[in-house]
């Protein structure tokens, strides 16, 4: 993965010094609350329900074992011994002290990490899919461009104080797993008819209060222009995006107001001046950065392993794990492994310091010392030999990291909600836990099959509820907590936003509601049909009818 040189290191070190001084001035009363806010936010520090919350950047989800080990140390020393992986592939600490943050940053800097631009109205952490570099359907490994964009966006002077947060995702696969359509800018790599690397550019997507899937602003962009074209887009947004109302300040609102054609016209006019200026990426720079992401030193191993096959045949628990948590790989004899951070009954995405240390060890032992975080809030060891899978499984299982539920109903995406977040309308973690407990029977869970259930504690949609096959949204009704349910949302190339099925439910009702949605699916599905396909085929009506049936009788 990308290794810092002196220049990268100097920037994070200077950042630590700068932020240390900003914190000092704030604590000394030289900066008001209002003045300090944008500064601390650009450093990922929120003031939350319980305590400050610090969001640590994990650029495009890549972590080294040394970094994860350090994150374990930091969460032990400065927090309550755990952290939370977020849907933006970052790690959040829920209980740091504001005064400690400069020290935490200094510790992070020792392992080439930071919290730069993890929040605030600037270009946020750039995300991609967790299987980059190893996915069989990958056309181009997008990490080099993502890293070049990380550097370009870091302390970008023109875009430090945008109207609103700005999120960029890159994808290099045929099957989009980076949610490019739900980002302010989505960059989709492909090879054009001349076999040249090109980008399709999406703009104006985002979830939140006004969920909108992005539109294609440019079908074909030569990769050299990735920075200047983004500059043009963001400049138009910076100058013309609304600043009067934060709920209407995202780029999606501007794109909608102008229409994609007019917006494209303005961007192209701007780009005419920026194209071929100095920020054009050179072959040499791409090659330099790409070297950091060269393929791992894979061994020449056979496509089949007798020990692995025997273990699958004789051990149903192992077989179940392999089915759900082990994924195909470009390299013969290797697999990618998802370590589930969704054991039933725990907050999705949470991980203890001890588990971080364990995963770091596992990465060292089995996966070249590297790992990734996913937007589904799990961890991935991307390069595991078939012959190592059994040993890895036993160790992961002993540490609560091998729930065989990846891609299933209980692999819930869930925001921190009312337990931690001061913006929440309702709790979300207890709902996730209750649903996990309701569906604790593994055979049933596997029978239900592929399913995405996403929960957000408010319409900010941190839990991506709009694109969940089942989406749950916490709402406030007369001061008490209720939950609105939508179905039919989906991420990927054929992304869609879910449809609300009707009036909201109390927390107690939620496991039962999900149960009923599943019942309709089981009854109606054709062989091989996924829940999402059944919903798309039948529409909301039969689901709605069954879920609300009893209520009507009672009323």
């Amino acid at each position, binding site marked *: 993965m990308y290794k810092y040189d002196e220049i990268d290191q*100097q920037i994070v070190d200077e950042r630590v010094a700068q932020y240390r001084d900003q914190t000092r001035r704030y604590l000394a009363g030289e900066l008001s609350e209002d003045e300090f806010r944008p500064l601390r936010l650009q450093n990922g520090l929120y003031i939350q329900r319980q305590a400050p919350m610090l969001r640590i950047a994990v650029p495009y989800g890549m972590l080294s074992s040394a970094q994860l080990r350090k994150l374990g140390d930091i969460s032990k020393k400065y927090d309550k011994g755990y952290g939370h992986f977020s849907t933006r592939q970052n790690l959040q600490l829920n209980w740091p002290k504001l005064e400690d943050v400069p020290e935490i940053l200094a510790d992070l800097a020792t392992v080439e990490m930071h919290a730069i631009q993890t929040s605030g109205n600037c270009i946020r952490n750039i995300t991609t899919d967790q299987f980059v570099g190893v996915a069989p359907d990958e056309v181009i490994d997008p990490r080099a461009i993502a890293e070049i964009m990380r550097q370009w966006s870091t302390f970008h*002077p023109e875009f430090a104080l945008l109207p609103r947060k700005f999120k960029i995702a890159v994808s290099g696969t045929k099957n989009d797993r980076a949610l490019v359509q739900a980002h302010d800018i989505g960059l989709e790599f492909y090879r054009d008819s001349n076999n040249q690397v090109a980008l399709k550019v999406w703009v104006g997507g985002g979830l939140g209060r006004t969920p909108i899937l992005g539109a294609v602003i440019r079908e074909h962009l030569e990769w050299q222009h990735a*920075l200047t074209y983004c500059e043009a887009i963001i400049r138009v947004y910076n100058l013309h995006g609304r600043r009067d109302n934060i709920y209407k300040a995202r780029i999606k609102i501007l794109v909608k107001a102008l229409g994609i054609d007019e917006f494209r016209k303005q961007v192209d006019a701007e780009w005419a001046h920026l194209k071929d200026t100095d920020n054009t990426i050179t072959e040499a720079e791409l090659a330099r950065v790409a070297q950091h992401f060269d393929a791992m030193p894979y061994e020449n191993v056979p496509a089949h392993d007798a020990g692995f096959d025997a273990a699958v045949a004789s051990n149903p628990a192992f077989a179940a794990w392999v089915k759900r948590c082990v994924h195909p790989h470009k390299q013969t004899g290797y697999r990618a492994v998802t370590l589930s951070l969704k054991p039933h009954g725990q907050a999705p995405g949470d991980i203890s310091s001890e588990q971080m240390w364990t995963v770091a060890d596992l990465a060292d032992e089995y996966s070249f010392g590297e790992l990734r975080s996913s937007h589904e809030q799990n961890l991935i060891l991307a390069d595991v030999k078939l012959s190592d899978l059994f040993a890895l499984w036993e160790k992961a299982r002993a540490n609560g990291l091998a729930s065989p539920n990846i891609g299933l109903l209980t692999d819930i995406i869930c925001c921190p909600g009312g337990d931690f977040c001061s913006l929440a309308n309702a709790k979300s973690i207890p709902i996730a836990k209750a649903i996990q407990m309701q569906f604790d029977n593994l055979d049933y869970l596997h029978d239900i099959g592929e399913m995405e259930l996403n929960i957000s504690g408010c319409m900010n949609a941190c839990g991506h509820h709009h694109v969940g096959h089942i989406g749950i949204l916490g709402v406030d009704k007369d001061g008490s907590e209720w939950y609105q349910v939508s179905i039919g949302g989906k991420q990927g190339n054929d992304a869609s936003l879910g449809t609300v099925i009707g009036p909201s439910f109390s927390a107690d009702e939620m496991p039962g509601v999900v149960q009923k949605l599943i019942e309709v699916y089981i009854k109606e599905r054709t062989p091989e049909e996924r829940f999402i396909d059944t919903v798309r085929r039948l529409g909301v009506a039969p689901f709605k009818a069954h879920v609300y049936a009893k209520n009507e009788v009672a009323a």
Partner: protein
Amino acid sequence: MSNLIKLNNGVASLVEDDWTLVQLPATQIEERKQAGKVVLFKLTGEATVTDAQIADTVIPATGKIILPLSVFIARNSEVKARIAQGEIGVWLATHELLENLTQQQADLNALPIIAIFVERFADGRIFSLGNLLRTRFGFKNELRAFGDVLRDQLFFLKRSGFTSYLVRADRSAQEAIASLTDFTKPYQGAVDEPRPVFKRYNRGA
């Protein structure tokens, strides 16, 4: 003590301000500057400054003055001679359009100073405006930021082409100077150094 920081060949120092800033008289009309609805303003032809405000603005008869853009445009004939003598500068607010300035004044370099007023320091339009004045419109003279200017913007303002900074009156400009050099080797190309890091250094492999 002056609160004006000025860059001279890249070196920052505190200087006395020899310009007088002319303000628009206040009105009761709701100001919609924060709206960021330039697009809407353009579509509806709405003005953000009233004719009465422009007419009531007092233009000092002598001395070096910085006029609001709207006054500079509407009452240009009154100051034509003084522009030629280099006594007139212009300031604009972050919601105003640069094209309105360039349509009136094709040769921007006849103006010794252009200033941009930022009402709230979180309003990052100022950076794009600075960038455009330097890179698109070729402005070479003093480019000043004033208003809610705090030390934590200075590095970005410098990189966006600003060469002077009137730090908010309740803060020490002396202390603020240090922030101009918060970072020594920024990654991306910008106005002050157009070459990104990968074109400035040989970063090896």
